[in-house]
C-alpha cells in the first residue's frame, strides 16, 4: 500500500532530508512514524502527499509511483488520501459542515451523498451537533476532530496524520488515537507521524523510527512492546 524504495531527498538549499530510506506499510496497517524534530518525518509525509518529489528512489502509494506521476494527476491522487494536520488547516470563515464537505465537493460526489457522508463523518468524531458552528468557536481538540472528519469523509484508503495529537492533552490524544484505530479496523491504512512516545508505547503498533534522514528501525513489520 505504501512503499519507499531507496529514497533520497535533497532540497534546493543542499540539505539532505532523507538518505536511502526504504520501508513498506501493508494495507490496513496502523504505523507510527517517529523521530525527533528535523529527523525527516515531514519529508516522508511530503513525498507521500506529492508536496515534494524524491531526488532518487521510488515512492509508491496506492499502487502509484509518485515520482513519475504528472502534476496534473496530483488532484486525483490526493483525493484517495486522507490527511490530518497538526495545525488542522481548517477554513475558519466556513462552518464545520463546509470544511468536512470540501473533499467531496472537489470530487464527483452527488449532493445528497455529500450530506449523508458529512453527517456520518461528523457523527464518527462526535461533532454532529456542531455542524453549523465556525471552527474558530471550537476547542483545539474539537478542531482536530473536524480535521479528522474531513480526512476520512471521502473514504480514503490511506490516512496520513502529521502530529495529530501535538496540541492535545493526553486524554484528548487518546480519544483521537481511538478514532484512528477505528478507521484501521475498517481497513484503512494509517500512518501517524508523532514524537509522543507515551502514546506510541500505549497503542503498541509498528513504529518506524527515523533519525538524521535514515530509517533506524521498524522498516519491516515489528510492533512496539
Amino acid at each position, binding site marked *: 500500500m505504501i512503499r519507499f524504495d531507496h529514497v533520497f531527498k535533497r532540497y534546493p538549499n543542499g540539505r539532505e532530508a532523507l538518505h536511502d530510506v526504504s520501508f513498506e506499510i501493508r494495507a490496513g496497517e496502523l504505523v507510527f512514524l517517529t523521530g525527533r524534530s528535523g529527523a525527516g518525518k515531514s519529508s516522508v509525509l511530503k513525498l507521500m502527499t506529492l*508536496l515534494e518529489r524524491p531526488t532518487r528512489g521510488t515512492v509508491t502509494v496506492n499502487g502509484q509511483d509518485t515520482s513519475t506521476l504528472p502534476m496534473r494527476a496530483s488532484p*486525483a491522487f*490526493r483525493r484517495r488520501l486522507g490527511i490530518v494536520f497538526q495545525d488542522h*488547516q481548517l*477554513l475558519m470563515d466556513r462552518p464545520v459542515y463546509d470544511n468536512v464537505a470540501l473533499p467531496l465537493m472537489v*470530487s464527483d460526489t*452527488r449532493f445528497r451523498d455529500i450530506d449523508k457522508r458529512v453527517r456520518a463523518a461528523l457523527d464518527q468524531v462526535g461533532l454532529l451537533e456542531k455542524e453549523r458552528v465556525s471552527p474558530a468557536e471550537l476547542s483545539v481538540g474539537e478542531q482536530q476532530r473536524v480535521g479528522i472528519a474531513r480526512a476520512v469523509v471521502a473514504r480514503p484508503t490511506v490516512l496520513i496524520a502529521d502530529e495529530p495529537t501535538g496540541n492535545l492533552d493526553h486524554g484528548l490524544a487518546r480519544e483521537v488515537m481511538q478514532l484512528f484505530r477505528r478507521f484501521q479496523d475498517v481497513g484503512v491504512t494509517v500512518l501517524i507521524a508523532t514524537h509522543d512516545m507515551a502514546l506510541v508505547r500505549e497503542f503498541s503498533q509498528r513504529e518506524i523510527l527515523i533519525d538524521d534522514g535514515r530509517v533506524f528501525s521498524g522498516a519491516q513489520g515489528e510492533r512496539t512492546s
Partner: protein
Amino acid sequence: MTSPIIYLTRHVQAFLGALGRLLRRPLGSLLTLLAIAVALALPASLWLLVKNVQLATGDTGDAIEISVYFRPGAALEKAEQLAASARNRAEAGTVTVISADAALEEFRAYSGFGAALDSLQGNPLPHVITVKPKPDYANPRDVASVQKYLRAWPEVDSVQVDGEWVRRLSAILDLMRKMLGASVGLLALGVLVVIGNAIRLEIGVCRAEIEVTKLVGGSNAFVRRPFLYEGFFLGLLGGLLATGITVILVVALAEPVSRVSALYGGRYVLSGLDLLEAAALIGLSALLGVIGAWFGAARLISKIEPKD
C-alpha cells in the same frame, strides 16, 4: 467522467460562491465596478455620437449623384449604350439619360431665356447621364471607382460628382469610427487589466483556502471556477452600469440637442442605445470579465501549491 448534473451543480456552487464573495466586500466591488463602467461608458458614448451624427444628417447615399457630360456632337446612341453599361454595374442605383434636346427644352421651359435660345444656331448642350449609386455603394471608394469607369469612355467629356459635403462628412465619420475602434480596443484592455488585477488580489486573500482545497484534491479548474464567475459578474455588472451611464447622458443631453435642432428648423430627437446595442455592450463586458479573470487567475492558481 463527471455526470452533467454534478457538473452543473458544481457550476451553480461556484456561481453563488462568487456572488457571495463580491457581496462580502461591497466597497471594493463597487469601486472596481465603477472603474469598469466608466471605461466602457466612454466608447459607448462615442458610438452614440457617431450614430447620432449619421441619423441627424440623414441617408447621405441619396445625396450623391454622378453627372456624366458627353462631348459636343456625340451620338445619343452612345449615351444610351453607356447608360445600359452603367446599369449593369453593382454600384449603380438609378441611371437616367438626358438627351441634349430634352435638356434644351427643359432649359427653355424653366430658365426664362426661351427667346434668347431661339437666336442660337444649334443646341449647345451635351447629352448627360446621371447615376445615383445604391446606398451600400455611396462611399468615396465605390463612387471613385464608378467615376473612373465612366470617364474612360472616349465620348465622355467630363464626370462630376455632386455632393462634396457628403464626402467630407463621410471622411469625418470614418475618422470618428476609427477613433471609436481605437478607444474600444484601449479601454477593453483597461477593463481586462482592472478585472485581472481585482481577481489577483482576491486570489491573494484566498491563498490559504486554495492551498487547503488543493491538498484535499481540488484541481486547478475547480479552484479557478469561482474566480472566473467573479470576473463574469464584475464584467456583467460593470456593463449594466455603463449602460446606465449612457442612458443618463442621453437623457441629460436630449433637451439641449432638441433646442439646437429647433433653432435650425428641425425636430431632431437624440437617439440612445437600442436594446441590441445595450445587450452587446453588456455581453462584451461580461466576456471581458471572464477573459480578464482567466488571465488574472490561471497562472497564479496553477503556481499555488499546498504547503505542509
